[in-house]
């Protein structure tokens, strides 16, 4: 509905209308290409070029402090990664981190969404508070928890000591898990949000039918809610997994990879090798191994979402 009065040329000739419509369609297609052009140019510049560039230097002895002496070395970087213990540890740590964090986030987020879904009193306030952590910059969250869990200055250790528990959150044994728990604090809200959105878009009839049939709450959850939520769950898990693989800020803020290599994660290692040790070629090869892992993971998760239900 044009609101712009007095601008409508009312003289649309009845006989020429089909032609007008056709040219409008062609006009639309041309306009469409024109409108999408800036998007493609920018995406090409910030994705396509970097992706190809990184692929190329992963085959070169590319060091920031020896740019005059860049040699093609084929797959040497990739081959040496196979026996690079720090790299293997970083991959393993990242895998543990992702599985623990995303697993807990899914369980807690889904439970919480089910609990809050039909809440009436204080509905918006509860939701706003529960969603808050995901909007905070991860580096701030990292430092907040480093402070909160600090043995001398923190809040949590004295409370635990009062009941006789002594935990060194960032010691060699627990550091990685502590980081995963911080991730759970920050990102469970995202899964919670996506599950809420999923629950609210579900049709009502299956639930009414289950109620009429006298199905128990657990049965309804297992056989009605869960199967219908599956696409939303898969999307949420993909998004969170891709993001958790990039864990960087908590490591940077709290442990810097230590103690020892206990919290060395892949993104942090790439940062160190590439931008602190200037070995960009090697860092690029690590990044590409990560790409391969990501592609396999996404393919598996997408397959999982398409698997027909057993029931």
């Amino acid at each position, binding site marked *: 509905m044009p609101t712009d009065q007095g601008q409508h040329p009312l003289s649309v000739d009845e006989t020429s209308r089909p032609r007008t419509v056709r040219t*409008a369609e062609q006009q639309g297609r041309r306009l469409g290409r024109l409108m*999408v052009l800036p998007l493609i140019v920018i995406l090409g510049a910030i994705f396509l070029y970097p992706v190809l560039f*990184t692929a190329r230097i992963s085959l070169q002895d590319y060091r920031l402090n020896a740019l005059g002496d860049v040699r093609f070395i084929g797959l040497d970087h990739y081959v040496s990664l196979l026996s690079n213990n720090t790299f293997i540890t970083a991959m393993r740590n990242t895998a543990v981190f992702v599985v623990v964090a995303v697993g807990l986030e899914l369980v807690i987020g889904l439970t919480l969404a089910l609990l809050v879904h039909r809440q009436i009193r204080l509905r918006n306030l509860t939701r706003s508070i529960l969603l*808050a952590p995901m*909007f*905070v910059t991860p*580096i701030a969250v990292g430092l907040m928890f480093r402070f909160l869990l600090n043995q001398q200055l923190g809040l949590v250790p004295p409370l635990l000591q009062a009941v006789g528990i002594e935990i060194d959150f960032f010691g060699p044994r627990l550091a990685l898990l502590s980081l995963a728990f911080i991730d759970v604090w920050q990102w469970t809200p995202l899964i919670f*949000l*996506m599950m809420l959105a999923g629950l609210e878009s579900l049709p009502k009839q299956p639930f009414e039918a289950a109620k009429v049939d006298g199905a128990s709450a657990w049965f309804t959850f297992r056989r009605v809610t869960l199967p219908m939520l599956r696409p939303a769950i898969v999307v949420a898990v993909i998004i969170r997994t891709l993001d958790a693989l990039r864990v960087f800020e908590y490591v940077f803020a709290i442990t810097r990879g230590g103690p020892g290599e206990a919290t060395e994660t892949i993104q942090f290692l790439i*940062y160190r090798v590439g931008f602190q040790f200037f070995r960009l070629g090697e860092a690029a090869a690590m990044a590409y191994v990560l790409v391969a892992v990501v592609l396999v993971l996404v393919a598996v998760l997408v397959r999982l979402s398409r698997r027909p239900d057993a029931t």
Partner: protein
Amino acid sequence: MSALATNVKRRVLTGVRVSIVAAMVVIVVVPFAWVVAASLKPQEALSRGPFEPFTPQFETWGEVLRSGVTASFTRSVIVGLATVSIAVVVGSLGAYAISRFRTGGGTMRFGVLAGQMIPPAVLVIPLFLIAFQFGLNDSLPAVVASHLTFVLPLVTWFLIGFFDEVPHEYEEQAMVDGYTRWRAFYKVVLPQVRPGIGAAAIFGFILSWNDMFYALILGGGQARTLPVAIAGFNTFRGVELGRMSVAILMSVIPVLIASFFVQRRLIQGLGSGGLKG
């Protein structure tokens, strides 16, 4: 008798439910409250135990507001606004074409998001080297370019969903009335999705505001954004803790306020356009 039993059972269940949700709320709120308290504690109270009483003071706030952190705050605002402006203009043009004219087909529609699978580590190396070649290393334009890698696809994706929901009759009617395609888009469709654009813009701003990885590598010195400045507080001495808490709150408070405006939209966007695609 059994009616009474179910009644009791229901009450117990409600009690359990309310206490779980309440516990979660406490777990979310306590860390924030703790940092607020730390930002108000006098220096000597910070090194005492956490439960000692203290008289609130605002000296630490004053100190930080007069320091370089304010400049970082401004830089974060500039980067966020620049990123979002580019993303909204380029994204809404592209999203409209993808939604209406099926430009590029399904490949384009989903290809927009495909880039999100690429780890930032792959993108940051060339972006750093390009910036270096143009003499733009440690500068805000380099940071903006890197933030577009995650803000632009997301904004575009959200907008495709919003444009999909505007009935085609709107433009058809406008064109019958003599509007060109472009004017129909600009004058008729765009106002319809303005709330969606607003929410996507705020969300994009928050993402840019929160990034540290790219900002650290592409602008870690003179062009420090707020998260990079916050990362600088990594020595845990009494004085630093108070200042760090203030810096954290400077980053957190604006975002929490902004998030209230987008939450409901986010739930809608994810429920309709976002998930079904």
